[in-house]
């Protein structure tokens, strides 16, 4: 194809790209309109000015700062804890090659694919029994196990390829196992570990089902749960709704931009999930 043909292909792909990002644009445009302006101009006009009152009102009404902090606290804790467990497991499975490692890996894989619905009610019941219901800690513990299942599966494959000579040399120099792990295996596997940290953080941030079940009070809820539960409430008029959507979209896009380089390299890693 030459001449007009190649431009036609480009044009079609650009049109599709615009369709894909259109909801983001329209949410952003309407979140900064006053209800009166929305009423008279509709959703497509560009805003007359920056009307931020809708966003501020919604922020205060749902204590959005608290929601952000809860999401951050839960996601960061899960990312770190799940990476630590994944590294310990992968050390035993990938480098230590403990007996029955294939079955242990299958167990982790099944744990990762199980629908959370099949764990939800007992977890809810147990959390109440040990007084962890409606605490961020409950979500942290459960999500750590689920993410570590995937991390173990992935890291074991990576550490299975780890050059043995380096570890043998370290052992001859008198380094113990924990020391070899901390001083040699972790630094060398750093790129994969970083990708896992980011993935665990974002996956946990985006999680909806388990936080919905565990977190019922205003002080503990995460961003997706708060927005998801409020959707369709009576006071959610057009501009308040788009303000709420915008507040949910912005952190996600911020993470995407911050982590973009690591992510685009890492999506292929995540493909196993």
């Amino acid at each position, binding site marked *: 194809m030459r001449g007009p043909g190649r431009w036609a292909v*480009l044009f079609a*792909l650009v049109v599709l790209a615009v369709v894909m990002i259109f909801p983001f644009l329209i949410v952003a445009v309407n979140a900064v309109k006053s209800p009166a302006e929305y009423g008279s101009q509709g959703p497509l006009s560009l805003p007359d000015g920056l009307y931020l009152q809708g966003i501020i009102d919604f922020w205060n009404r749902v204590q959005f700062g608290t929601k952000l902090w809860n999401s951050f606290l839960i996601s960061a804790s899960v990312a770190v804890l799940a990476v630590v467990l994944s590294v310990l497991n992968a050390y035993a499975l990938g480098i230590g090659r403990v007996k029955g490692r294939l079955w242990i890996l299958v167990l982790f894989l099944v744990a990762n694919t199980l*629908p959370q619905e099949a764990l939800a009610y007992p977890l809810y019941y147990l959390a109440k029994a040990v007084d962890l219901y409606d605490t961020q800690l409950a979500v942290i513990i459960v999500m750590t*196990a689920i993410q570590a299942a995937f991390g173990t599966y992935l890291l074991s494959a990576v550490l299975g390829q780890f050059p043995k000579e380096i570890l043998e040399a370290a052992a001859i120099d008198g380094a113990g196992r924990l020391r070899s792990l901390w001083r040699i295996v972790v630094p060398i596997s750093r790129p994969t570990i970083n990708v896992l940290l980011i993935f665990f953080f974002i996956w946990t941030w985006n999680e909806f089902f388990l936080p919905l079940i565990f977190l019922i009070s205003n002080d503990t809820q995460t961003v997706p749960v708060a927005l998801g539960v409020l959707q*369709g409430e009576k006071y959610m008029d057009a501009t308040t709704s788009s303000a709420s959507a915008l507040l949910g979209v912005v952190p996600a*896009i911020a993470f995407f931009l911050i982590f973009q380089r690591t992510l685009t390299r890492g999506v292929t890693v995540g493909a196993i999930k």
Partner: protein
Amino acid sequence: MRARTRGYWLYLIPSLLLFLAVIVVPFLMNVGASFTRWSGVGTPRWIGLDNYTRLLADVRFWESFQHNVGLIVAMAVVPTMIGLVLAAALFDYIGKRFGARTASALRAMYYLPQVLPVAVAGVVWGWMLHPSYGAVNQIFGLDVNWLGDPDLALATVMAIMVWFQLGYPVVIFMAGLQRVDPSYYEAAEIDGASWWRKFWHITIPQIRPEIFVVLLTCTIAALKVFGPIFVLTRGGPGNATMVPSYFSYLNFFQKSNVGYGSAIATVLALIIIVVTFLFLRVQERES
């Protein structure tokens, strides 16, 4: 040698304890509860397979699985097909004629919905499609209740999920295409093969592993889908968008039919495990 590997077991202990408490025991409790009648308080009453026989006769249960099939089409099949064409077009057409930067900018735009929490994607579309003030009706001058009309609701949810999922296969397939030896394409070009012939005979066979992975992961995601249903329709109107995960949630937390909810969740878990093993078997045989 035994002593050497024995020491490594120690590193598994924290995870094994955590898994026992958070996954193994709760899963067994769930299976156990599925043989009982239980409201969540008091003592569960053993009723054997009654929940399962009730399930097989329950129209809502079967419908919820039919909706799941629709969502597999929307979340796995359609994005994979469109994603293949898009990835190939971006990789060997746009990338070569308009530069790699254009290709990766377009890719980033296709991928953008994927970064959203799926519940937030639901909030965005719930707003866009709102029957009285939603942007879509106003733009096209329509008066359609996209999510409130029982005949339209599932199709609307499916369309939203295509939008949400599309970027994932595009990114995975484009990464896969980088592995492909360019001499295949050069040879085909010398033979005068059309773009579609190259797509069909080189691109698709070469990135078959990626296609498998995308189909498997998206199919599992579609079977588990909960967030968009909760946010957009709560399974309604009527039963029009009910899926197994939401159906079990409803029984657990709103109807206090914990035993019945557990049976639904157990069946869903079994289906997902079977699907996973089938995929892995086929994949193994292929390679």
